[in-house]
């Protein structure tokens, strides 16, 4: 028998008692009593049947549940009777809990959810540090040569792997499908501790140059592109125009985050999940380079019991050995940085997420405080009811239960609504996931989130219900019942509590408003900063040249020359240009320029960002020429260069840079570049900071398969998108053009995260302000009602109405003012965290601080006006007669 069968069981009990009672009556009748007396005697002998039933219920062990249901029913009835209060309180809790749950889900997904690998906490990334370049690159990807040395000598790792990610066309030429390929050394499988579900991993042989044409498909790619063909093993697929033999299929559960190396650093937000794994191989020459190309993502699995610090120490020692053996012209001070994989993937997203979480919890706190305030005023009005219950013998525990049951029901309803709200919000937050962590499929509310909501609802019940409950449990019945008149005012303790609550609301609101103000101002400044280039009427397109037919720079450059000629002939086009990196999508490749005559080791040379561009690039984005000239198509084949002002003044201080020469790499083998012009500095890497030293080389010198086009038009650029695509395809139909969009859109997108943070904070701040206003209004309205007679007396004794106004205003604004000061202090206290999210604005900005306080005061003053007006309108005669 279960508790939900109570009703049936209770009927049974009633029947039992009745039948036994009848028997008792019969026996009494046999004693010769009158029918009336019989009944009375039987009842006397039997006792109170209701009490018996209650006792039996206790014996059944269901009493607590029954009491709970009864409480819930009672609370619901009470809430139903004051719908205004109930709806406000419930919605407040729902918004607070829902928003907090949604943000928590995002934070959990990004920072806490374990990566889908065995013992994910043992997986670490390895980066190299080169002291000489630390100003531009605090850490660098790994060189193949150093990796091999670590692999041979380390004692800290179970396994290690290097990898690179790139996008390649899969399948027949003409209609290739672009897929993400992860090229990795065979160690990857033991690092991640995953095995193909079908087939096998790479052999050591396949990790050698010339044998690497084998591929392992991910489950999704195998299902979608090959129909889940069970006989796929041994078949040949075309990747990047080369035949690859399929040797395996990864299990369905395998999901690999996107990784970034030098080539992809900041450039692409890999939109596609990894679809295929191929072996990463190194040529003999590359392995022999002592410094090599610092260009591979290092991943390793720590041995059990080895900490990150210990492993890092060991690697540093190995790096020291490598440094000591470097040839004189490559002298560098090497060390290594080991970071847990997850931490690396979260990267710089940690701080904004924490700020958002703190902010939303602030909002929840304000919501709880408001509900507490509402409950407190209800508790005061229910004081007599409670006193009667206490006088009739209700225990303290029962009184507290009575006081907290409404809160509990409110929290349950609010929490339920909050979960629904969160379930609606969460999927739309997917696009704010950092790209590296957006590999696990759709973001949705899961048990962690629901658990969080449940916990919050419980906390809200305790937080919001504690004050009224403690007040009620302190009720001295004789005092309350004696004190029958309406003169009785709120106890000083309760008044103090309510004012403290208003102060808390004010403090959190000011902090939120101030933070929102700072982020907004920062964003405005970021958008208004002098970018040094223009975006009006400009389109940016990305192009991915397949290797098939474009396997060398010559072919690629000729393709673009053709495309640019056709684009520039279009009537709507002002300037069409090629660039290896579109504005605000990355820095370009890092390299060292060696000025003619400079013979320092390569690591001592200054590091610059290189870009290859076509002649019209500068005009297309209006990057002004300071000196010299642009290169032109007639310079085709010549090694010319333009440099930014910063480069010019660093490389040739005090000299005319025009005509100067420099080389990349070895001057003995490589033709030097001649500087023909200087262009102004701009912010093309990030709006937040000026560009580093930039060197522009012509596109006939270097063209990567992935590149961008910028096209300045004479008309509305959105109409040109199709024409741009058609023009490219008129040269070659088989070339994928993944994106065509306006440059201004890209600028806006580069601050999308900041805008998202600002929008959310704005929402939190406005909600908190409204709640604070509501709180002040509630407290004052109540206090004016309480002091009705006192105010009447004052007026009767000659007080002026303005002074009554002032009395109420002061009463309402004093806690707000104290709270505002505390709030500004709170915001200043967290300045270190907030400051790092700001652009060109101090977290202590006086104008914004005063503004935030001003906004709060304005809201609270308007909340005070109605109660104050009501107080001033008190008719003294009527007030005094109410006794």
């Amino acid at each position, binding site marked *: 028998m279960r508790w939900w069968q109570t009703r049936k069981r209770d009927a*049974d*009990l009633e*029947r*039992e*008692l009745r*039948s*036994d009672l*009848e*028997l*008792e009556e019969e026996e009494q009748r046999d004693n010769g009593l009158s029918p009336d007396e019989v009944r009375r005697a039987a009842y006397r*002998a*039997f*006792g*109170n049947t209701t*009490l*018996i039933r209650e*006792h*039996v219920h*206790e*014996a*059944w*062990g269901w009493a607590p549940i029954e009491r709970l249901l009864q409480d819930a029913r009672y609370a619901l009835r009470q809430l139903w009777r004051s719908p205004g209060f109930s709806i406000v309180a419930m919605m407040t809790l729902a918004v607070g809990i829902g928003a907090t749950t949604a943000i928590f889900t995002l934070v959990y997904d990004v920072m806490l959810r374990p990566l889908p690998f065995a013992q994910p906490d043992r997986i670490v990334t390895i980066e190299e540090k080169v002291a000489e370049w630390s100003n531009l690159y605090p850490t660098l990807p790994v060189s193949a040569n150093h990796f091999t040395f670590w692999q041979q000598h380390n004692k800290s790792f179970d396994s290690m792997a290097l990898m690179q990610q790139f996008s390649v066309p899969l399948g027949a030429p003409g209609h290739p499908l672009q897929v993400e390929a992860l090229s990795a050394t065979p160690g990857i499988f033991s690092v991640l501790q995953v095995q193909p579900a079908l087939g096998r991993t790479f052999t050591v042989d396949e990790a050698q140059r010339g044998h690497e044409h084998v591929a392992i498909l991910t489950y999704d790619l195998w299902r979608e592109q090959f129909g889940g063909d069970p006989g796929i093993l041994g078949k040949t697929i075309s990747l990047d125009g080369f035949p690859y033999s399929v040797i395996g299929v990864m299990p369905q559960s395998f999901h690999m985050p996107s990784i970034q190396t030098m080539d992809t650093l900041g450039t692409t937000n890999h939109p596609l999940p990894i679809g295929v794994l191929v072996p990463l191989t190194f040529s003999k020459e590359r392995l022999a380079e002592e410094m090599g190309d610092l260009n591979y993502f290092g991943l390793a699995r720590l041995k059990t019991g080895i900490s990150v610090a210990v492993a890092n120490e060991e690697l540093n020692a190995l790096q020291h050995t490598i440094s000591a053996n470097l040839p004189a012209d490559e002298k560098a001070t090497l060390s290594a940085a080991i970071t847990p994989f997850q931490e690396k993937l979260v990267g710089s997203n940690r701080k904004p997420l924490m700020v958002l979480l703190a902010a939303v919890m602030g909002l929840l706190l304000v919501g709880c405080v408001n509900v507490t305030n509402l409950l407190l005023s209800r508790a005061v009005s229910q004081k007599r009811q409670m006193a009667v219950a206490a006088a009739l013998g209700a225990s303290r525990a029962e009184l507290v239960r009575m006081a907290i049951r409404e809160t509990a029901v409110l929290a349950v309803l609010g929490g339920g609504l909050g979960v629904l709200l969160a379930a609606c919000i969460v999927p739309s937050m997917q696009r704010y996931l950092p790209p590296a962590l957006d590999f696990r499929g759709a973001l949705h509310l899961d048990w962690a989130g629901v658990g969080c909501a449940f916990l919050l609802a419980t906390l809200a019940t305790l937080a919001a219900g504690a004050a009224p409950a403690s007040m009620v449990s302190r009720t001295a019945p004789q005092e309350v019942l004696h004190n029958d008149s309406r003169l009785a005012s709120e106890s000083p303790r309760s008044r103090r509590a309510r004012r403290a609550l208003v102060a808390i609301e004010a403090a959190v609101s000011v902090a939120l408003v101030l933070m929102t103000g700072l982020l907004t101002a920062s964003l405005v400044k970021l958008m208004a900063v002098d970018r040094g280039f223009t975006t009006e009427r400009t389109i940016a397109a990305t192009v991915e040249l397949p290797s098939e037919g474009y396997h060398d720079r010559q072919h690629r450059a000729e393709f673009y020359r053709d495309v640019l000629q056709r684009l520039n002939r279009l009537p709507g086009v002002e300037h069409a240009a090629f660039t290896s990196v579109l504005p605000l999508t990355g820095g370009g490749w890092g390299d060292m320029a060696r000025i003619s005559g400079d013979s320092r080791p390569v690591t001592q040379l200054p590091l610059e960002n290189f870009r290859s561009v076509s002649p019209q690039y500068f005009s297309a984005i209006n990057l002004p020429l300071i000196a010299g000239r642009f290169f032109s198509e007639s310079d085709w084949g010549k090694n010319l260069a333009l440099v930014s002002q910063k480069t010019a003044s660093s490389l040739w201080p005090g000299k005319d840079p025009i005509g100067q020469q420099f080389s990349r790499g070895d001057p003995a083998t490589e033709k030097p570049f001649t500087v023909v012009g200087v262009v102004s500095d701009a912010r093309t890497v990030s709006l937040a900071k000026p560009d580093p030293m930039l060197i522009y080389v012509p596109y006939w010198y270097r063209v990567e398969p992935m590149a961008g086009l910028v096209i300045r038009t004479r008309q509305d650029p959105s109409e040109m998108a199709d024409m741009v695509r058609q023009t490219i395809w008129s040269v070659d139909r088989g070339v994928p053009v993944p994106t065509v969009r306006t440059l201004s859109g890209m600028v806006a997108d580069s601050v999308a995260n900041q805008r998202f943070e600002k929008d959310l904070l704005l929402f939190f701040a406005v909600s908190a302000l409204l709640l604070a206003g509501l709180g002040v209004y509630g407290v004052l309205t109540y206090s004016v009602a309480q002091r009705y007679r006192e105010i009447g007396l004052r007026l009767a004794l000659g007080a002026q109405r303005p002074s009554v106004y002032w009395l109420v205003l002061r009463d309402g604004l004093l806690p707000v003012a104290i709270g505002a000061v505390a709030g500004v202090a709170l915001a200043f206290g967290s300045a270190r965290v907030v400051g790092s999210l700001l652009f060109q604005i101090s977290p202590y900005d006086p104008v914004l601080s005063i503004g935030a306080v001003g906004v709060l005061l304005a809201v609270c003053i308007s909340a005070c006006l109605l109660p104050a007006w009501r107080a001033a309108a008190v008719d003294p005669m009527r007030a005094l007669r109410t006794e």
Partner: protein
Amino acid sequence: MSSTKEKAQQRANLLQGTLDMLILRTLLYGPAHGHQIGKHIQRTTNDFLQMQHGSLYPALHRLEQRGWVTSKWETAPDKNREFKYYRLTEKGKKQLVVEESKWKQMAEAVSSVMWPVTEEN
């Protein structure tokens, strides 16, 4: 204050245990309904133990909950009506032995204080 409360609780437990034992013992004669059980205990003790229905029914339901007795609605042999009859289970019989030995120990302990052995001399 809490210690007196605790003592009261212990006393209640003792009395409750005794009542359980008396009911189980009564049912050893055969199935009976609540009224019969109450009356039987009252009669056998010459009205010394006035059965309170307020404790009898909760006790019966508690015993049933523990599986020491089972209940069934049956027509009384002498009346034309159904009553809820309680019947001792095997588990209940074992429990009766346990309760009995406990009570014996208790009674012996009390009597050894009240009527010391020296009286035999």
